[in-house]
């Protein structure tokens, strides 16, 4: 299944990046969301999809039984998801505010600080 997921990840990256390169604030943030999904899925896949069973120790056992998914990438992704959520929330508020202050959602019109 890894090749399929790899293609999904690649597509998510491509779509996310493409959206971010538009002129529009909203597309930018949607692209960001896709990008963060892509990154999470990448961690998940790169570590290997070794089982369909959750990394849980059955009651009464001292160690997990049978094959089970690698728990560490899951913990990493959980952290990354939550961080991503915070970032997206902030970005949304930023864009909201930027739209209020600047009066446009066209990124091409936001060049005053560069030149």
């Amino acid at each position, binding site marked *: 299944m890894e090749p399929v997921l790899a293609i999904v990840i690649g597509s998510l990256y491509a779509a996310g990046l493409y959206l971010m390169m538009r002129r529009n604030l909203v597309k930018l943030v949607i692209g960001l969301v896709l990008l963060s999904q892509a990154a999470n899925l990448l961690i998940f896949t790169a570590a290997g999809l070794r089982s369909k069973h959750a990394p*849980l120790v059955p009651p009464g056992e001292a160690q997990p039984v049978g094959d089970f998914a690698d728990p560490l990438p899951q913990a990493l992704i959980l952290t990354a998801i939550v961080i991503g959520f915070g970032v997206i929330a902030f970005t949304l508020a930023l864009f909201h505010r930027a739209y209020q202050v600047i009066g446009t959602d066209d990124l091409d019109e936001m060049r005053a600080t560069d030149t």
Partner: protein
Amino acid sequence: MRSIILRSATRYLFPIIILFSIFLLLRGHDEPGGGFIGGLLAATAFALYAIAYDVKSARAMLRADHITLIGVGLLLATGAGIISMLVGDPFLATQWVTLNVPGVADVKLGTPLLFDIGVYLVVVGVTLMLVFHLAEE
């Protein structure tokens, strides 16, 4: 939202979700769940409340100020780590106490629970701060 149906549904769904979120928080160490998931779920309940009624009543329901909630949560989580330093262990080394509660079971209490509660509070506080403030715009 002025939907009567939504409002009355919210009145019975809200406590259920909160209860479930606390359950997820407490059971998260053994089964899927934990501070994040619980916190997010609780926050969703409040968000629902804010949508069905309004932000003001949702705030009133929360009682505590978000910022304080976050601060306390952060202090709890950090404190859970500092406790071990008082014993001479490294930061965030977990400490466990087993309490025997008659009739229930041996309850193991550990700093990870404290930590998770801190996480829960921070997540609730933060998410609500985001939702409420954006909703008020």
